[in-house]
């Protein structure tokens, strides 16, 4: 397992994606899946950075494991306010451009792309685990 502990700040997004991409490249992940995984990692990390510790600051821990059969498991942990992003209602993606609200798509994209995703609040931590076959 590989682990990254990092200040939960949007400015650190590039470092988080570098960490993930290095693991994906080592494991010869195809480009399409890598883009899908990066999109999800960005959405989840930016959510933590923007909301978990507001107005204070804190850390996020990202743990990555390659599973057998081949899949990537990424677990995000933070000690911020308890928040289950999976409980958020899905946006209506059939609306026209004029009817659609700006935003609200991030976690929906994560849910659609994941092969498995789960959330728990344990030991004062938000724990979100995203699994994607590759």
């Amino acid at each position: 397992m590989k682990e990254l502990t990092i200040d939960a700040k949007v400015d650190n997004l590039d470092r988080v994606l570098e960490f993930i991409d290095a693991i994906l490249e080592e494991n010869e992940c195809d480009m399409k899946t890598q883009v899908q995984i990066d999109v999800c990692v960005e959405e989840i990390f930016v959510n933590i950075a923007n909301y978990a510790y507001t107005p204070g600051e804190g850390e996020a821990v990202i743990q990555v494991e390659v599973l057998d059969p081949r899949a990537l498991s990424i677990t995000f942990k933070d000690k911020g306010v308890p928040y289950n992003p999976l409980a958020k209602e899905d946006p209506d993606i059939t609306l026209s451009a004029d009817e659609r609200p700006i935003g609200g798509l991030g976690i929906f994209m994560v849910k659609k792309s994941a092969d498995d995703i789960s959330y728990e609040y344990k030991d004062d931590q938000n724990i979100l685990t995203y699994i994607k076959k590759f």
Partner: protein
Amino acid sequence: MLNINKEANGNVCTFFLEGRLDTTTAPQFESEIKDSLEGVSSLIMDMAKLEYISSAGLRVLLSAQKIMNKQGSMVIKNSSEEINEIFDVTGFSDILTIE
């Protein structure tokens, strides 16, 4: 990292995007669009060299689409298979004009 090249020709404005349209680069593109749309009736986004788009990037495209619905049209060109897949998942394929 996002490079934006703009070509303005009368009422046609074309953006050539290169790199990543994500949380860190989307604000730059959003302000570039806002500064460029006066009198524009045809907005073209050439994504041949765009590698990646996140929901922050989609937000910018949606707000540009809303503006262009009032004053003309907007077309996405040369987007990659990876990016088209993201448009499909989010229903953006139905609201954007993708050529």
